């Protein structure tokens, strides 16, 4: 019987024929049964061996969250110190009127890099760094689900960060301010703007990688029983912030894409002489930029949400209120972006909407603070050093918040906008909402991360230096701003009432620097003689304080079953049971790294997930990805393309070798009488979630490019221009057909493979890339006759075509990957995670194809 006339077999890979077996949740009886001592030791030895860190030069191949998290934090902190030194030079230049310590050009490089580095190399990455470091601790997970992705993200961050910040040291830094407004930034003659764009795009990619990692970690790697209503507030914040990154960063990536096309190929997206509009960049930048402020603020307030209950020695009051406030802020923060554009001449009523949303966001933020106050009210307060920093942060942040309320009043903003009032405001919100809570977090979590305590005395000295220095530096800036001093001026004339204030700010800024010096010394000073610290030095109630002292790299000895928000306070037997390996995954029989994957809402155990170990691949992939972004800065494209190809090859190799191979045993013992599958495909697997989340971000970026098209239509009376040639409609239609066919073939391949019709599935996987290539080629041909440098209309058409063609290329690689996986036995009807993820990719891509082709083929006709 040939394959084709066999009856269609039923689908082989159904999620439920891989269901967990055994008892869940565990009974008290099972939990109280002791583990024999010799078994405990044998298990611990195997676990230790599985999680051993590489040594010597191979240390850089480590991917474990405890290693990568520390590198990430220290790197971000180092960038912060460098950007802080830049601020000191800025302050010195502004100490006296008409000072000539540095040139205008140097000053402009410094303030641009100060802002860019603080935002992109410190504020956002430090969130990712701290979350990578401590989130698994909160969740008693052994590691995050994609350790190599964390490592790759870190190396991208390091390489991109050094290339961006290094530009200032060779006098080639960007000079157009951290928000790079065109036409100033597009007209800039040096390579500064390119370094900014490409370097930061590179880092934005790393941020999105971290967001994917953290969202999947929070949703799928919680310990059994940790339902959404009892997960630590920090995890809620990580979830919200991860989601915000997915919607906030892509518009900027889309903006960078258009911007770099203008810089490199003279496509006039922001050039008003050829139909472009500089205001479009402002929209794209601030759709990113304002949520970004909350992306920075929420994780820091999350640290406060962990410190405050410990200080009050009782559970947080208003847990749901804080969750509401985090989610609510996440949403509202996307309705504020135009308050950075109040003076751009938009209609008053438009400003009114954004003024309203900017005021509305105050309410969830206020609720957050009042929940902390309420917790302190009902508790027995025991103030510690981290709490001192939180208190200082609160004092500063509330001031910044209140000036924020003022600035959101558009008529007042007409005066204060782009003046030193704004400089003061933003430093108040960022110091109070971010720097102070993060330092509090460093003091609080240092014992968790490094198994040492920082100095109480140095901590207090640093606090008072920074607190006093900060207020003396920045409080008067509100005043001088309203006396008319604009921001970003490299010098100023005397006699306007600005002189004394500026001198005072400069002097006090050195107090801040001294405070940071004390803090930095405290962090890096050798602590080898310090006696062993207690395991739970602050008396916290959450799972990170089950960590091992002295350090063990396995994350947790066994993964506990959790039934309350503060398990350490509520379950006195937890620690002993955890240490004896009574809970889940107490062993590593095959000496491989593993963690447990649970369900999204109730954290029911789903499967045992293999976790990848040390490897050179993430580092190498990051180096070559770096090449792909950094070479174009110098307008050399062949090595950039070669680098990109090598990076892609390395990433494919990494995926091929380590992910989704059929396991030796379908089911494994997870402890406590529970047997779990070892393999998952589709929504049960972490890979599927990662793809879903990544594509959501990608779709947002695509939507931003489409938004650009419609934006030009609203901002110009003649768009699409009557006299301009359109993309060839027939070819656009052909592209739709080709890509639709490619999508259908991919979906069919998944369907056929799941029904064991492997040959037919492989045939479909041969048809699919051919159809995709044909469709992509037709799309290229449809715009080949346009000249994108003449006007923004052909430029935006070509940009859309590039977007689709590049994505089709990635889709083709994925299809061929599945074909190869099928042939190599990596993908079978039963083990089809690869094709399921690829199908998901193609679903998203199909939407992009249809929208693009509608815009290219139909919109010009309709809109003229």
């Amino acid at each position, binding site marked *: 019987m040939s394959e084709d006339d066999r009856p269609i077999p039923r689908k082989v890979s159904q999620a439920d024929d891989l269901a967990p077996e055994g008892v869940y949740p565990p009974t008290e009886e099972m939990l109280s049964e002791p583990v024999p001592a010799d078994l405990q030791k044998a298990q611990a030895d195997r676990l230790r061996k599985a999680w051993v860190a590489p040594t010597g030069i191979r240390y850089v191949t480590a991917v474990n969250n405890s290693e990568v998290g520390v590198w990430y934090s220290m790197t971000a902190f180092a960038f912060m110190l460098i950007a802080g030194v830049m601020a000191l030079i800025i302050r010195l230049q502004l100490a006296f009127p008409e000072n000539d310590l540095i040139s205008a050009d140097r000053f402009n490089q410094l303030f641009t890099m100060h802002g860019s580095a603080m935002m992109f190399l410190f504020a956002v990455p430090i969130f990712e760094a701290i979350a990578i470091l401590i989130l698994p601790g909160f969740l008693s997970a052994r590691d995050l689900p994609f350790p190599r992705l964390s490592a790759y993200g870190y190396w991208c961050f390091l390489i991109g960060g050094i290339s961006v910040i290094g530009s200032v040291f060779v006098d080639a830094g960007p000079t157009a301010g951290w928000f790079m407004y065109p036409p100033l930034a597009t007209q800039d003659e040096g390579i500064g703007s390119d370094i900014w764009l490409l370097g930061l795009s590179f880092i934005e990619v790393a941020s999105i990688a971290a967001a994917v990692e953290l969202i999947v970690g929070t949703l799928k790697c919680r310990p059994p029983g940790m*339902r959404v209503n009892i997960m630590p507030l920090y995890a809620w914040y990580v979830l919200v912030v991860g989601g915000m990154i997915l919607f906030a960063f892509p518009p900027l990536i889309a903006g960078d894409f258009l911007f770099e096309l203008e810089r490199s190929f003279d496509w006039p997206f922001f050039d008003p002489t050829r139909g472009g509009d500089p205001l479009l960049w402002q929209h794209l930048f601030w759709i990113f930029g304002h949520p970004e402020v909350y992306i920075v603020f929420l994780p820091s307030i999350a640290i406060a949400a962990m410190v405050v209950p410990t200080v009050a020695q009782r559970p947080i009051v208003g847990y749901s209120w804080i969750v509401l406030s985090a989610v609510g802020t996440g949403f509202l923060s996307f309705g504020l972006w135009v308050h950075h554009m109040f003076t751009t001449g938009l209609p008053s009523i438009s400003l009114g909407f954004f003024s309203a949303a900017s005021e509305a966001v105050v309410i969830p933020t206020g609720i957050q603070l009042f929940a902390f106050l309420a917790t302190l009210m009902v508790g027995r307060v025991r103030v510690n050093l981290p709490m001192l920093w939180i208190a200082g942060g609160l004092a500063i942040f509330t001031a910044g918040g209140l000036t924020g309320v003022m600035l959101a009043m558009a008529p007042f903003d007409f005066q204060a906008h782009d003046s030193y009032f704004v400089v003061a405001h933003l430093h108040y919100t960022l110091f109070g909402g971010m720097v102070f809570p993060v330092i509090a977090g460093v003091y609080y979590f240092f014992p968790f991360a490094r198994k040492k305590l920082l100095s109480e005395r140095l901590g207090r000295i640093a606090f008072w230096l920074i607190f006093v220095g900060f207020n003396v530096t920045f409080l008067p800036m509100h005043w001088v701003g309203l006396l008319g001093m604009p921001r970003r001026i490299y010098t100023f004339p005397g006699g306007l009432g600005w002189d004394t204030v500026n001198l005072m700010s400069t002097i006090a800024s050195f107090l801040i620097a001294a405070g940071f010096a004390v803090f930095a010394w405290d962090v890096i000073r050798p602590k080898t003689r310090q006696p062993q610290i207690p395991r739970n030095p602050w008396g916290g109630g959450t799972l990170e304080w089950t960590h091992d002292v002295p350090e063990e790299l396995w994350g947790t000895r066994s993964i506990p079953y959790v039934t309350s928000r503060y398990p350490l306070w509520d379950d006195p037997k937890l620690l002993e049971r955890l240490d004896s390996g009574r809970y889940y995954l107490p062993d590593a029989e095959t000496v491989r790294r593993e963690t447990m994957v649970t369900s999204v809402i109730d954290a029911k155990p789903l499967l045992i997930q293999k976790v990848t170990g040390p490897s050179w691949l993430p580092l190498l992939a990051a180096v070559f990805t770096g090449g792909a972004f950094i070479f174009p800065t110098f307008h050399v494209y062949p090595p950039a393309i070669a680098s990109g190809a090598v990076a892609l090859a390395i990433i494919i190799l990494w995926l091929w070798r380590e992910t989704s191979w059929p396991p030796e045993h379908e089911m494994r013992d997870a402890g406590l009488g529970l047997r779990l599958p070892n393999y998952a495909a589709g929504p049960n697997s972490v890979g599927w979630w990662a793809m879903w989340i990544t594509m959501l971000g990608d779709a947002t970026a695509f939507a931003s490019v489409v938004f650009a098209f419609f934006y030009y239509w609203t901002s110009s009376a003649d768009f699409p221009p009557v006299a301009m040639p359109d993309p060839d409609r027939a070819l656009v239609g052909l592209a739709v057909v080709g890509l639709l066919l490619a999508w259908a073939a991919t979906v069919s391949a998944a369907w056929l493979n799941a029904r064991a019709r492997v040959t037919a599935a492989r045939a479909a996987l041969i048809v699919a890339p051919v159809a995709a290539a044909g469709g992509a080629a037709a799309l290229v041909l449809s715009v080949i006759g346009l000249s994108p440098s003449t006007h923004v209309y052909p430029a935006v058409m070509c940009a859309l075509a590039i977007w689709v063609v590049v994505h089709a290329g990635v889709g083709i690689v994925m299809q061929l990957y599945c074909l190869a996986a099928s042939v190599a036995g990596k993908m079978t009807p039963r083990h089809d995670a690869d094709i399921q993820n690829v199908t998901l990719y193609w679903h998203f891509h199909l939407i992009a194809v249809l929208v693009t082709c509608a815009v290219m083929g139909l919109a010009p006709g309709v809109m003229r």
Partner: protein
Amino acid sequence: MKTPQEPRAQEERREFREEAESLFRITFAPVIWAAHFLLCYCTLAVVCAKGGDPDFWRTALVGLTLVALLAITWTGWRAWRQWDAHNTGDYANARGEDEDRHQFLGQAALLLAIISAIGVIYTALPLVLVEGCR
């Protein structure tokens, strides 16, 4: 999987089961706020740029505001029922049980509905107070 917990009414177990929940449900009200906000902004941006009667559209959008508020009220009412605090007397929902998780998601959705309603009302203020396109 066997679940050795005390038997509960079949109906209740169905109501509280994990598959019936979605984290997305708590975002309904804020999504209504976002849709309302974007519609208000985009409509008037296009009307002011491409021509049209802003005062007519302002009135229309006030109507839309009422619809949005109704939808949020409905979401909030459902969430209030789900929270069920007036029956259980439990305001914290802090236990690791199906029922607490169910009620917690109700409470979170209710609070988000309140915030979203305030957001929608604020967004409607310019519709009432700011005339024309200048």
